[in-house]
């Protein structure tokens, strides 16, 4: 090798010491997070909520702290940018100058620039001019840091001084611009890590809850339409896939409320792996047979809802929904803002005028008292309860619940209790800016409901009208899937998406563990990427000791890929039913084209979502190829959802670097 330079000298780059105060704070917060995690694990036992346990969650306090910092700055930054272009330009300069992570800046070399010590010290010593009171703490921190610099800096460390100087030179502002810039938008999303590839020999069983939420798709669509790539944490691949309707075949017998369709096909983004595609199709309840519905609309009319894409859109949306109801059903409306109040006592759905008048009179104002509103809504739901029917609270909000004594935990507990009592909760998210995706998800998941994000009237039409049946009428609940892979045929597997829905292996047979529901006519898709034994794509090297023998010992020479198990409960039952399907060579499709167009399209969406999450597996699969696959599988597309998806691919491509 003709190396003119030795890369290993990288080890000698001097690293500054961590800020002691930050370190202490981090330790405290980490321990608090640790305690929280333990507490929630303990109080919920193995029942509801355990599927959230593997998620990397932000602690509430950290989020709030970052947010308050972020809001402080971003407010200023936005105002500046909007007011005068020149000011916007200056803000840009400050950002570029004051905050240069070195690696993303245009001039990485500058970081190593030899600032003279004198200049650095002089700048550091100069006090910041009249800091606002709120900046005081930040300023203190930066001064401490700067003072600590001389002893922290080993004599030869230009790099370190450069980095510290960058911060001090621009004064206090820069320290706050940074967190603000990252979260200009205050929408909150839970972080989670993409599922990794698992070796079948070590971990043959994969267990998860189905997920029929669609909120993630609308959120990423909104981001792309506004010209930015979505926050990777906002991309839940399974929700993108399940946003679309797929007409998978239904079984002939109606023993189970839904059919399970499995196929194994080549992977479009990797010639050496295969995709195991699982499509679940629920029966449609015939309108005449559908149970009566008792719906309580819980509507957020707080001041933050006063935006065209919030309350006015919500009013139109519920008008649409009203069209789907008839005399069998009752509707009530509760608002919350300041004092929670009942706007409409339970009313027969055919008294349209009365209901519409109540909707039209909703006015935004006040702050949000979510907990009181929810209690009120449940009270009305119990009052108008339909035995054997659908009892559901429909919460519409931008997700700002944090006023009053309510804690997330307590809210969750109320919702779980009511769920066990037969009153479910669906959540409809509106607006952007402070949309609290995490809270909305948690509420809906714990309330046996769906979480949908409504950003346009068209989306309201899709969620509330076309899919009213699946949104309102569950045909099966607590649907869990467990797949056991055969180590003789499959070396590795990776579940695409469903990270936030992972279950423990033993939870599968535990009927107390809550999971997702399937509504009337719903379809649900899950896709595994599997690596056959002997494929060059195998990522994990075989173990040196023992494992091969074990594999040989189990040898009944089976050629099956996997054994698929599915558990569900009927809506009014507490004991689960089990369905099993051995997935053998008979399920093999020679090419993607041999799959149904629906399955092909779902695979294109899976690729798209993974690419937005920057998943390694699809790194070499181009946007163009995704578009080609999706375009070929568009089908009839009467409402244009799939065409819209094709446009989103184009937008994402143009924004991706």
């Amino acid at each position, binding site marked *: 090798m003709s190396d003119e330079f030795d890369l290993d000298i990288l080890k000698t780059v001097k690293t500054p010491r961590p800020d002691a105060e930050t370190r202490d704070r981090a330790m405290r917060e980490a321990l608090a997070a640790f305690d929280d995690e333990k507490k929630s694990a303990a109080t919920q036992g193995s029942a509801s909520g355990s599927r959230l346990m593997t998620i990397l969650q932000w602690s509430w306090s950290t989020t709030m702290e970052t947010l308050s910092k972020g809001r402080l700055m971003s407010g200023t930054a936005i105002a500046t940018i909007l007011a005068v272009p020149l000011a916007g330009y200056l803000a840009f300069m400050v950002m570029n100058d004051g905050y240069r992570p070195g690696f993303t800046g245009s001039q990485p070399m500058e970081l190593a620039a030899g600032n003279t010590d004198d200049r650095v010290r002089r700048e550091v010593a100069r006090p910041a001019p009249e800091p606002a009171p709120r900046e005081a703490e930040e300023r203190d921190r930066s001064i401490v840091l700067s003072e600590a610099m001389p002893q922290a800096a080993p004599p030869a460390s230009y790099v370190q001084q450069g980095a510290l100087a960058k911060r001090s030179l621009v004064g206090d502002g820069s320290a706050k611009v940074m967190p603000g810039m990252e979260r200009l938008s205050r929408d909150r999303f839970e*972080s989670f890590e993409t599922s990794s590839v698992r070796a079948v020999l070590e971990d043959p069983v994969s267990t998860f809850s189905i997920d029929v939420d669609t909120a993630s798709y609308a959120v990423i669509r909104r981001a792309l339409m506004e010209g930015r790539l979505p926050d990777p944490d906002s991309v839940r691949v399974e929700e993108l896939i399940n946003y679309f309707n797929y007409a998978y075949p239904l079984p002939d017998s109606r023993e189970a409320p839904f059919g399970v369709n499995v196929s194994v096909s080549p992977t479009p983004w990797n010639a050496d792996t295969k995709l195991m595609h699982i499509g679940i199709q629920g029966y449609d309840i015939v309108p005449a047979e559908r149970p009566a519905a008792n719906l309580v609309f819980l509507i957020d009319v707080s001041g933050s809802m006063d935006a065209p894409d919030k309350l006015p859109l919500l009013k139109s949306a519920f008008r649409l929904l009203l069209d789907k109801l008839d005399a069998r059903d009752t509707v009530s409306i509760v608002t919350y803002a300041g004092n929670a109040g009942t706007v409409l006592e339970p009313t027969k759905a055919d008294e349209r005028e009365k209901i519409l008048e109540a909707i039209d009179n909703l006015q935004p104002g006040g702050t949000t008292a979510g907990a009181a509103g929810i209690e009120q809504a449940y009270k009305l739901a119990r009052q108008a309860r339909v035995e054997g029917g659908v009892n559901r609270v429909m919460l519409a909000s931008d997700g700002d619940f944090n006023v009053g004594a309510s804690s997330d935990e307590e809210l969750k507990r109320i919702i779980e209790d009511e769920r066990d009592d037969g009153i479910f909760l669906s959540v409809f998210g509106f607006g952007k800016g402070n949309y609290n995706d995490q809270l909305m998800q948690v509420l809906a998941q714990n309330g046996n409901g769906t979480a949908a994000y409504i950003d346009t009237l068209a989306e309201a039409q899709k969620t509330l009208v076309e899919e009213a049946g699946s949104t309102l009428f569950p045909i099966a609940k607590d649907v869990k899937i467990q797949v056991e892979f055969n180590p003789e045929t499959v070396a590795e597997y990776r579940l695409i998406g469903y990270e936030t829905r992972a279950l423990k292996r033993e939870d599968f047979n535990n009927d107390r563990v809550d999971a997702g529901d399937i509504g009337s006519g719903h379809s649900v898709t899950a896709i595994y990427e599997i690596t056959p034994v002997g494929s060059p794509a195998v990522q994990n090297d075989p173990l040196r000791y023992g494992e091969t023998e074990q594999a040989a010992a189990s040898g009944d020479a089976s050629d099956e890929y996997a054994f698929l198990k599915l558990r569900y409960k009927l809506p009014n039952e507490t004991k689960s039913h089990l369905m099993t399907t051995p997935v053998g060579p008979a399920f093999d499709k020679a090419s993607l084209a041999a799959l149904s167009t629906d399955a092909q399209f779902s695979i294109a969406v899976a690729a798209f979502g993974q690419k937005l999450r920057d998943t390694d597996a699809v790194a070499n699969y181009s946007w163009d190829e995704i578009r080609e696959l999706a375009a070929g599988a568009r089908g009839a597309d009467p409402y244009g959802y799939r065409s819209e998806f094709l446009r989103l691919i184009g937008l994402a491509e143009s924004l991706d670097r």
Partner: protein
Amino acid sequence: MMTIAGDALSPSDAIAGDGDQALAVRASAGDREAFARLLERHYDTIHRIAWRWCGDGTEADDIAQDVAVKLGRAISGWRAEASFPSWLYRIVLNTVRDRQRARASERRRVEAYAVQKLVDAQGGGGADDDPAARLWSAVGSLPDRQRDAVLLVHGEGLSHDEAAGVMGVSEGTVSFHIHEAKKKLRTMMQASEDELS
């Protein structure tokens, strides 16, 4: 799953030491003291990794803080068959990348306002004499994956196999990224030397 033996990493940098795996097992089972010790022991390492990847002290502090909280949340989901060091690396790298990604999209939006970029005339000011610092800066301008591979293998002293485990790719891919990175770095270092002379 790959396993990195405790002593496989550069002993002086000691992300892993005797007992990490044991502490992690106890912490994941809910042992508060074990978690505190584990974090105590590795906080500086986390900070170092963050700093090497992002090149900014304050940012590294923020990232280290984020990672610490994430660990508190996630340790109960950690499984003993995974190697603790590579798991830790993965969390730090993901956090760095998420933040940089968020910032990149933010910058794109702001850049729309800055119609023309001011020439960085006052910037630069000549390259540093320290070859390590110059090289490190150049590494920072590589594409993400190449940067990760180079810093993990040459900066942190992991083997290609271990780096592959952290990055979730195959060993061959790591070698390929490093090969590509070397080609680019050679050009970059050459160019900057020309400037100096």
